[in-house]
């Protein structure tokens, strides 16, 4: 678990708007360890989806990766040309998109959509080999081989999501970015999709970044959890330690907002709204909503620092200085 699959260093992704640049990802750094599932959780606008898109190189105008590095297999992805990045996608790093409801081509068959990625990457297969490959991929995600002949509109939401997963693993990438793979699904299907994801990960030995906003889901699935707020990482730590003793007030409030099943307690939310990225508060972006805010929080933005072995936090409370 100590080897690193992906490294992100000081990534800045900005969107140009009429009123100035929006820093959707603002100086984010973390490592993705080999074989782990890293969760990335946050509210809408926290930057988590932008982060996922940046990793697969899909940031399009008016967005731009302004600075920073994404290191995969010793290469900095941010320096790649458009064609070179195309080669890296699917083969080394794959995306399971948010909302696979509309992520599949409506007019072509599933089989074609599973095969065209590898084909454009130079893999040549005979018809029999192709059929086998498609059937085995569908089997891996728990779908019948008949799905190959179908069109997207014939599939349910959960099935579409699993097809997307099958496509993502078709070239056995080492890194998979799963962007809210269960958001539009009901709980039962969610469970099945996540189980499929875990099975797939075990078999491939891939490292997964699971992006989402559902703390409960994260708690059950991930090995380590990163919490994003207003474009920055607030905290990152192994899941157990995060749940037991969160270091950042935001993380703690996220955990406390989960409804308790065993002992009854009143539902708690987090007061206030997520900040507008064009109009960030001074100092720590969370300070207006933080119950433990003190003077330093209003004036000084906290650095993302190592608080313990394997734990990083951006909060003045954690500074023992």
């Amino acid at each position: 678990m100590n080897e690193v699959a992906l490294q992100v260093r000081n990534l800045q992704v900005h969107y140009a708007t009429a009123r100035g640049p929006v820093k959707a990802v603002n100086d984010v750094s973390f490592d993705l360890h080999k074989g782990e599932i890293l969760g990335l959780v946050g509210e809408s606008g926290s930057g988590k989806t932008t982060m996922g898109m940046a990793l697969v190189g899909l940031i399009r105008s008016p967005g731009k990766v302004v600075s920073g590095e994404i290191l995969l297999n010793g290469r900095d992805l941010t320096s790649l040309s458009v064609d070179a990045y195309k080669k890296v996608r699917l083969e080394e790093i794959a995306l399971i998109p948010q909302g696979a409801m509309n992520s599949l081509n409506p007019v072509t068959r599933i089989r074609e959509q599973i095969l065209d990625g590898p084909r454009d990457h130079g893999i040549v297969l005979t018809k029999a080999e192709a059929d086998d490959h498609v059937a085995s991929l569908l089997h891996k995600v728990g779908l019948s081989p008949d799905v190959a002949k179908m069109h997207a509109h014939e599939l349910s939401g959960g099935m579409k999501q699993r097809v997307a997963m099958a496509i993502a693993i078709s070239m056995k990438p080492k890194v998979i970015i799963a962007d809210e793979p269960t958001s539009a699904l009901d709980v039962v299907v969610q469970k099945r999709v996540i189980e499929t994801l875990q099975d797939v990960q075990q078999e491939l030995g891939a490292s997964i970044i699971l992006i989402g906003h559902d703390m409960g889901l994260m708690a059950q699935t991930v090995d380590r959890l990163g919490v994003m707020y207003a474009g920055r990482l607030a905290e990152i730590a192994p899941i157990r330690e995060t749940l037991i003793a969160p270091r950042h007030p935001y993380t703690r409030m996220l955990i406390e907002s989960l409804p308790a099943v065993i002992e009854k307690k009143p539902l708690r939310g987090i007061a206030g709204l997520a900040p507008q990225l064009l109009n960030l508060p001074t100092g720590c972006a969370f300070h207006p909503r933080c119950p433990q805010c003190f003077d330093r929080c209003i004036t000084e933005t906290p650095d993302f620092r190592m608080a313990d072995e394997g734990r990083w936090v951006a909060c003045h409370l954690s500074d023992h200085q």
Partner: protein
Amino acid sequence: MRLNYVFRRVGFFLLIVWVAASVNFFLPRLSGQDPIREKLLRESMLGGAMQAGMDQIVKTYEVKFGLDRPLYQQYFSYLGDVARFDFNYSISQYPNRVIDMILDALPWTAGLLSVAFLLSFSVGTLLGALFGWPRAPRYLGWLFGPLLSLSAIPYFLLGLVLLYFFAFYLKWLPSGGGFERGTLPTASVKFALDVAHHAILPALSILLAQLGGWALGMRAMMVTTQGEDYMVFADAKGLSERTLFLRYAMRNAILPQVTGLALVLGQLISGAVLVEIVFQYPGVGTLLWRAIRETDYFVVQGVVFFSIVTIGLATLLLDLIYPLLDPRISYEK
């Protein structure tokens, strides 16, 4: 494809045929009188060699559409005639039958129109798709404006300009007609080439005038398509530019383009008819022009009926083809 769907479409086509016939019957009588009878009576009073035939026509007309018959009976007579493809005789070109005159002219129009249309649709759609694709060569963009400008003006006016320029000023191409005047049509290669030679300008007028329209529509569709989620995921798969353009963007964007085609079929025929007139091309258009000149009502009615029915048929074909292109459709309705 569900049989239900097919039946409804065929039903619509039959409705169109009925409307075509009814339009021909009722609209001329809008002024309160029957202009056809007026015309026939006038003609029969002129005398001459055609006298015997004209008398016969007038008598038959009076029997079917005389003032003494109630309107609805006249209507059913007319519908019956149409159903038997009896469009009567040409008043000015007696004893030619209208149906024969139309059938003679039809192949010319059909040939011209289908060639010009197929070319303009395919080239226009492809160009439009490229115009809407951000990673297409930049110099193509310069074509867009001029093409649109050309497509704004009526086809036949463009034809006029081209005719003057290429046939009279530059003298590169023939000045009209379907083939060299004075020659007889033969089934030879030489004749075929002559026909093609004469078809260039009319076809070009139709082609250039339509090109911009298709391009504009396709470009808009491509722009919309590129915003779709499946384009993002396709890109995430690392697909080649070519696959993204052809199999994902164009394949989807072309669907509304085909739907849009159904809407402009009427315009296509109307435009083509007028173009033929400019070039005196021996198709349905020139037939119509002469008929209007000579107030030859039966010919006009015949041409109008045929064009409406042809459009109806084309619409029907399109409707039947569309579900083959879009797998989502055959499972609804």
